[in-house]
């Protein structure tokens, strides 16, 4: 059940009414949210409901044991390790088993040892990467004493709450659990902000992302030899726009839906293409994943402790694992390594500047424009690997930059150029401008609000294509 569909609109209408009617009765509210969320998840494949249930059970018993750290540290640690192994085992099997088997078999075959690993191709359950990461963060946070272990019903709502279930944001226990435990104020729904987020998200996904994808990204990446070097450049820029509109569009809708139910999620994107360097980019792109990687991978690896070599190792491992989290393909590993390398260079450069008593990042309007331009180009280079179906596909795309000159570029149209520039420039609009629009909307009469919303919906469905492609992050 994709967000921008009639099916989901009907589902959400039921969920909205049920949620507010049951709001005075916390236990019934939680049971209703669990039932609705499991129904929502079962829309893809009912069998995977048991997987979500299994992750919840593992997280519950893991946290139960981990919470006894003060009285029984050894068993708490064992409980933590076992539950993490269980959660990562589920993720590993469903997401990486096929990839692992093929690569090991091919290596063994090359060494003359035969094909020893049985080949499997499990269907990748949608959302598994997201709810696994949330479950891990919950167990670890309980172990660390940052949060108390929750009642099973609260934990179940935390993990399955349908607005974030499929593709995030990756919400922490300390953010969501208190909101689940307390009743929401039925007279204080942040309607104008919620509806702004939902409409902006749907517009970005249905209109912009779909258009850029079919206009240039998909044709160029699927048959790079048939396209010119300028088309390849615009396809890379176009993919930057496509994935931003797709993923931030999804999280905007998720945040807006949660707001309508009286729940606040953390922001996940903050104008990422205004970043002046890669560190800055990761502060703005998929922010809830960045902080997850920081707190549950980078710091446990040792963080910035130790020599430069150790710090480099930690950054590279974190980014490569972050890349692999996106999918079982060497292209994601390369994407992660590329970003890790860029982070390492930036880290060492800043360190050297600080040692020379210079500001960590050079300032000035011209410099910042220059930095933004090249950061965007580097990010686009990474997107080539991210979007490519294989390493050879990525090299074919990049190879056209050297061999694809002198032919026509019919895919580069004025509308495409305007769309790409428009989306990137829109990131420089101050957030206050959007808040003013929300304030103006919030004080309108109900009939005016309904009329405006009806027209915006019509504009989106008219400008968008028939049917909606799944969100890119659904497959992660």
């Amino acid at each position, binding site marked *: 059940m994709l967000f921008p569909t009639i099916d989901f609109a009907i589902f959400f209408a039921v969920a909205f009414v049920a949620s507010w009617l049951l709001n005075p009765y916390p236990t019934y509210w939680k049971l209703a949210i669990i039932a609705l969320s499991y129904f929502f998840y079962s829309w893809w494949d009912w069998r995977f409901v048991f997987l979500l249930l299994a992750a919840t059970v593992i997280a519950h018993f893991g946290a139960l044991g981990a919470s006894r750290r003060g009285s029984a540290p050894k068993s708490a640690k064992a409980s933590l390790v076992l539950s993490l192994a269980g959660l990562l085992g589920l993720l590993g099997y469903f997401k990486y088993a096929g990839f692992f088997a093929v690569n090991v078999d091919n290596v063994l075959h090359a060494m003359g040892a035969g094909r020893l690993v049985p080949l499997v191709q499990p269907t990748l359950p949608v959302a598994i990467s997201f709810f696994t990461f949330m479950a891990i963060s919950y167990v670890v946070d309980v172990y660390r004493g940052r949060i108390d272990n929750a009642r099973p019903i609260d934990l179940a709502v935390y993990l399955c709450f349908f607005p974030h279930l499929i593709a995030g944001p990756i919400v922490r226990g300390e953010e969501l659990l208190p909101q689940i435990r307390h009743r929401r104020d039925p007279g204080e729904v942040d309607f104008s902000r919620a509806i702004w987020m939902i409409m902006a998200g749907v517009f970005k996904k249905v209109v912009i992302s779909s258009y850029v994808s079919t206009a240039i990204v998909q044709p160029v990446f699927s048959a790079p030899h048939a396209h010119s070097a300028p088309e390849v450049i615009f396809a890379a820029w176009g993919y930057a726009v496509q994935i931003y509109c797709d993923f931030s569009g999804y999280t905007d809708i998720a945040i807006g839906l949660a707001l309508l139910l009286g729940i606040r*999620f953390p922001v996940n994107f903050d104008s990422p293409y205004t970043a002046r360097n890669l560190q800055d980019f990761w502060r703005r792109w998929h922010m809830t994943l960045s902080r997850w990687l920081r707190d549950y991978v980078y710091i446990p690896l040792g963080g910035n402790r130790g020599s430069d070599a150790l710090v480099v190792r930690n950054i590279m491992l974190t980014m490569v694992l972050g890349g692999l989290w996106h999918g079982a393909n060497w292209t994601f590993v390369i994407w992660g390594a590329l970003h890790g390398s860029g982070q390492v260079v930036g880290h060492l450069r800043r360190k050297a500047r600080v040692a020379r008593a210079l500001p960590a990042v050079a300032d000035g309007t011209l410099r910042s424009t220059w930095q933004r331009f090249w950061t965007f180009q580097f990010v686009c280079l990474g997107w080539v690997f991210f979007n490519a179906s294989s390493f050879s596909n990525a090299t074919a795309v990049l190879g056209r930059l050297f061999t694809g000159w002198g032919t026509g570029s019919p895919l580069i149209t004025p509308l495409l150029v305007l769309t790409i520039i428009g989306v990137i420039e829109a990131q420089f609009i101050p957030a206050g401008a959007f808040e003013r629009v929300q304030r103006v909307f919030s004080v309108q009469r109900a009939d005016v609000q309904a009329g405006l919303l009806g027209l915006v919906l019509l504009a989106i469905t008219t400008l968008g294509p028939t049917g909606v492609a799944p969100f890119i992050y659904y497959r992660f």
Partner: protein
Amino acid sequence: MSWEDPFDDRPRSGVLEAVRRRWDRIVTPAKPPPPPELPPPGPEPRRAGWTRVLGVSLAAFAIWLVLDAPTLQHNAQVSPVGARRTVALDLLGPLAEVSRGLGLSHVVSIADGIIERHGNRPGNGLGTARVTVKPRVTTTPVPKVVLNRHPTATNPLRVLVLGDSLGIDLGDALVDDLSATGVVQATLDGQVSTGLTRPDYFNWPAELAVDLPRYTPQVIVIMIGANDAQDFPGPPDVLFGTPAWDAIYRGRVDAFMTEATSRGAQVIWVGMPPMQDPTLSAAMQRIDGIVRQAVPNHRGVEFLSSWTVLGTPTGQYSPYLVVAGQEVNVREPDGTHITPGGAQVLSSVVEQVIRAHLGVDLNG
């Protein structure tokens, strides 16, 4: 020596907190985003009660429904036959009448005119009136094409690939492979969720009639059929799997082959591969059988079976194949679609047919 607990972030030594602060300076914002419970700066938009939210949302939805009812009605008409389609048509029929009666549907028509959205597109997403099948180009006679067996960069072989989503899987790889030779001008016209069963959803013969004069292909590669195992909508509905269905489908295949070869193009019709779902697999075999029967009646048409190319030597479904000593994942996890690796395998076979059977020198 004790193992250092990687998840212990208690500030007992102070080192970890120092690391965290340092990392925060590097990776987290100088001004971190406000926690979710904090409102953003500036005056807050006015809040609303949930009943008002519900009322406004339902009213907005109703306005959109009436404005867009003809489009939604058309989408329902071209959807697969079944209870969902019937209910949708029953609900949307009166609304569409209201919309047309009040002239509201013109809003959408005007918008479509502005963004030039007319013509033969899958499902169209547009009002019934907008299912405009492009007329056949008959005013300017187009000379018949002759197969160019020795193409060059300046006089390339023109190849057109037509297909549904599986055809697109193949077409992407084939267009890339043929373009890489430097002597082929390859074009893919792929339309997902289409076939020959539902011309009301997407009209392939009409599309072909436009493509032929536009691209003047010398070779046409067709891979269509994955979505065709469904009933012909009536009344009365003609059920898939019956002799009546086979006869109608055979007629459409014949007509399509006649049209495709009408200007002298050589046609390679690629059959469907085995599917993970045995029922779908059997349906694909049935469709392949009808196409095979039609081929001998059409000069210039060759059937290329993908059954053992993308399946095991015995014709069984397999997600992996050994290609040149390497295990390759050839099928998507949905058990239907073809991975880029699988498409590469099938593409090389099609390319081989162009070289060997049609005698085209692709070496430039």
